[in-house]
């Protein structure tokens, strides 16, 4: 276990280097340096000065692989192309926590709602609660989040006036965006849980538990549910990747001041410094999260030799 963890940690820098390399490659394939402002032509002196300020006077390998990383992480003064008075660090510091809070909240909600949904569907097999749960899951996976979000916004925010319709900072403002972001994944987790629980019911250990005279509730929660946690746990890695980037879409629906706008704007404007920084921040975040999930997986299920290739 420890050796596996260490080996995974050792490949981490290599992985990040690979991602950074591909991001640089993609950025260099896109035309333009993102310095020209769209509306008016810049005087040549200004453009030349800007090129120096952004290190475009250096050869590309020096710029991307030495100066920019150093200015970003060490000096902290790497400017973003589109907002000239802002450094990349300042932008990340103001927007990233918002996106991360939203993402984490949604992730917790997704697990909570998903497990509940799956358990309810199995506990009430053949009754209307099962149909409700299964039906909600189908809606959850087949509507884009922005449509669900807009519907919630109109019904809960505008008609019922129960929560504020946008912005960020108060818990009430986080409620709708988090639910919207969580729903598709909650639906998927519910489906996974339900399938795994039904699988578990076919196993001998459930028959043993029933033969011992345990109540149906105890059988479900204490014996079948742990069995169902594994597929859910292994889904958390990819789900977190999708949720944290999916928050860009939800942020736009609810005007949440997170990374979403910066990401889209930076890509539109070829804001190279901000794009590279964002890609790397998310790569570190998601790869780290995945590592955590994999290690947890090994801890939860001792049968699994995590070092072996996944089946």
């Amino acid at each position, binding site marked *: 276990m420890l050796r596996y963890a260490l080996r995974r940690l050792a490949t981490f820098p290599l992985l990040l280097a690979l991602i950074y390399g591909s991001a640089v490659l993609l950025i260099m394939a896109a035309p333009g340096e993102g310095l020209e402002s769209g509306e008016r032509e810049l005087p040549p002196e200004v453009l030349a000065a800007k090129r120096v300020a952004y290190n475009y006077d250096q050869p590309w390998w020096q710029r991307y692989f030495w100066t920019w990383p150093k200015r970003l992480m060490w000096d902290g003064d790497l400017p973003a192309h589109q907002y000239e008075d802002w450094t990349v660090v300042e932008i990340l510091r103001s927007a990233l926590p918002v996106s991360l809070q939203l993402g984490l909240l949604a992730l917790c909600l997704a697990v909570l709602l998903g497990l509940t949904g799956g358990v309810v569907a199995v506990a009430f097999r053949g009754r209307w609660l099962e149909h409700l749960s299964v039906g909600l899951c189908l809606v959850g996976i087949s509507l884009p989040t*922005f449509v669900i979000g807009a519907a919630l916004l109109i019904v809960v925010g505008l008609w019922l006036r129960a929560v504020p319709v946008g912005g960020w900072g108060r818990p009430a403002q986080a409620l709708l965006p988090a639910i919207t972001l969580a729903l598709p994944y909650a639906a998927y987790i519910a489906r996974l849980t339900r399938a795994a629980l039904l699988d578990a019911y076919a196993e001998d250990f459930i028959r043993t538990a029933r033969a011992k005279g345990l109540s149906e509730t105890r059988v479900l929660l204490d014996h079948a549910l742990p069995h169902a946690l594994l597929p859910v746990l292994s889904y958390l890695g990819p789900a977190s990747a999708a949720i944290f980037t999916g928050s860009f879409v939800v942020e736009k629906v609810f005007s949440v001041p997170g990374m979403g706008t910066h990401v889209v704007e930076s890509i539109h404007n070829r804001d190279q410094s901000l794009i590279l920084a964002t890609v790397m921040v998310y790569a570190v975040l998601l790869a780290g999260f995945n590592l955590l999930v994999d290690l947890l997986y090994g801890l939860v299920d001792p049968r699994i030799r995590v070092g072996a290739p996944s089946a």
Partner: protein
Amino acid sequence: MSTPALDFWRRFRRHRAAVLSAVLLLLLLVGSFGTLPWSVRGMRTQQLQAARQPPSSTYPLGTDEVGRNLLWRMLYGGAVSLSLGLLAAGLAVGIGTAYGAVAGYVGGRCDAVMMRVVDVLYALPTLLLVMLFTVSIGSVLQRGLALSGETARFVVLALAIGGVSWLTVARVVRGQVLSLRERPFIEAARALGLPTHRILLRHLLPNLVGPVIVFATLTVPQAILQESFLSFLGVGVQPPQATWGSLAADGVRALNPVRFDWWLVVFPGAALAFTLLALNFVGDGLRDALDVRRGVGAAGRSVAG
């Protein structure tokens, strides 16, 4: 009489939801592609005096803010959405099958490394990468192949979405190949001294058709959803092009407390939802009919992205 095809049909027919869904999909396909010659022009015709009309007998699905008939736009958008989904899924399945088959058949260290790569790719911020792909490869295509902006966008979106959706297919195919590899008929082929590529293409691949078809059906809705997110963020298809996703996104953006043009959201949203539901049902039906084993760990990832 009992041929494999007949057996398959019998099993598939038992799935009422899947059969209904297949019929619905067929109708949608025929409807949106069959009307293309008219919808191409119809989707662009603006009648400013008839802007923001609710559904009526002249405009069955209403009109948008510049007076374009939503019916034409939906029919046209359907053709684009569906072909984008099919193209991206085809690409994903192609890459995934090749990758998974090689990893599973060669095995050993090679397999371990190849599957680690897949694990790692699962953790990438896909949406970010797809956006990056669309801007960089889009311009390359436009310059290199002299494609028009619209076509380049379409191709790039399909390439980018397909390029990040092959992971699940690769996992499933590898799993299948691992179990097939040990079967006597493969051993026999190896004993005959057939070269590896021949075993892969002639003996393994035909046995993979079942799972591959199932996962292709499940990848199409994912691709369509991805495109709708990109359109909503403004990096999908560019106006006046339309897909169901971009129409729904436009509708959501046009919503405000004063004007409530519900039809601009509800109809494209419903088209998307029904198509995605139908594809999921057909996928489930095919899975049962083709008797594909459910790898929960692998199938569990098809929603990611």
